[in-house]
Each structure stands twice: as C-alpha cells, then as structure tokens.
C-alpha cells in the first residue's frame, strides 16, 4: 500500500520505523488527536491571557516573547509528547528477518547521513551569519556537526532494529 505524504512526514519527524498497519495508524491518530487537543487548549488559554493583559504591557518585545513561547510549545512540546508516545508504543522499532538485517543497517546508515547533512546545513547557515560564509571555523564546525549527527543518528537507528527469527 502506498503511503500518503502526511504519513511519510510523520514517519520522518517522529521516527516511526515499524509497519504502519491499521492498528498502528489508529494508535498514531489517537496520539495526534491528543496532541491537537493539548495545543488547542493551550492556544485558547494563552490568547485569553494576552487579551486580559493591560495595553501598557503589550510592547513589541512582549509580543515577540509571546510568539517565541508559542513556537516553543507548538513545536518543542508537541514533538516531545508525540515522540514519547511513539516510543512507548514501540512504533520506532523495526522488526526484520535475519536476511534483511544487513539491508536495514544500510538504510540506517543512509538515514543517518541525511540527518547529519540536514543538521550540518542548518548549523552552517547559523554559524555563517555570525562568522561569515567562508570562515574556516564555520566550515570545520559544520563538518564536525555532520559527523556527530551521522554517527549518533545511525547508532540510534541501528539500536531500533530488532532481528526476528
């Protein structure tokens, strides 16, 4: 069965590696619905609190601070919640037969490489803003981030592969 783009995105961001059959999709939907509900309640409460704040405190910096808190809760909090639930449901584990194990390890290495490159690019653009695009420090730090990202993600992915007889 071909997976939708939404499922592919969810697989990537929440490290869902196992088979997404009807039972697992149902579980993922439950987690997503809970995450949405928490976010919905937070949005309501946060905006209501902002409406109650006196106008003299509503400066540009306060609103930017509010925006940052919202971003941290929306991305960080929800991602943490979903990742924890996925881990609890063991959806981040992949069961493979003994014959398929080497292929799964190879896929884990490729996944780790992509993770390292994306993480490295992100770091490069952050460092280049402060240190210049051709700075030796930016380039070397990026390479270090790529290697660390690659090895750590590969190690994590391989740890989640379960050999089944």
């Amino acid at each position, binding site marked *: *069965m071909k997976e939708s783009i939404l499922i592919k995105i969810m697989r990537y961001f929440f490290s869902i590696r*196992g*088979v997404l*059959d*009807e*039972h*697992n999709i149902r579980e993922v939907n439950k987690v997503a619905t809970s995450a949405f509900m928490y976010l919905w309640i937070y949005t309501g409460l946060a905006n209501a609190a902002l409406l109650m704040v006196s106008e003299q405190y509503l400066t540009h910096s306060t609103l930017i601070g509010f925006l940052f808190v919202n971003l941290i809760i929306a991305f960080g909090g929800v991602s943490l919640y979903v990742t924890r639930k996925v881990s609890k449901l*063991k959806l981040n584990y992949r*069961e493979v*037969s003994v014959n398929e194990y080497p292929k799964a390890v190879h896929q884990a290495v490729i996944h780790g490489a992509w993770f390292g490159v994306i993480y490295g690019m992100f770091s490069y653009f952050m460092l280049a803003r402060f240190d210049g695009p051709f700075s030796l420090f930016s380039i070397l730090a990026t390479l270090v981030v790529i290697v660390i990202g690659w090895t750590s993600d590969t190690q994590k992915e391989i740890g989640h592969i379960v050999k*089944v*007889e």
Partner: protein
Amino acid sequence: MNRVREFRKNRGLSQFTLAEKIGVARQTINLIENGKYNPSLKLCISLAEELGTDLNTLFWKVDDTQ
C-alpha cells in the same frame, strides 16, 4: 478468544512470517491472538485466506473450557 494462534501453529507459521504475508506488524498479530485488538473485516478476511480457513471458524466464539 479466537483461533488465530491455533491455525497459525498448524500451518507452521511464526507471528512474524504471518504478519509479513498479510502486511501488518507482528505486534498486531500478537494483539489479535490475545484478544486485545479487534481487527477490521478486511484484515480478518486476509487472515482467514492466509490461514486457509473461513471467518466463522477463525473468529466465532470458542469455548475455552473445552
């Protein structure tokens, strides 16, 4: 309880092999066998076909005391 485990063992299949054949996770087969998950009709039919039996035999009430 259903008779999925009994039919699977009779055919000499492991949970993993059966799961692979019908395209579900091994945990799902385990949950079905233990009566902790009610599969969809589509999955029940796939299971029955793979185990060479019919839905009635596989899922109709089984008296555990017998």
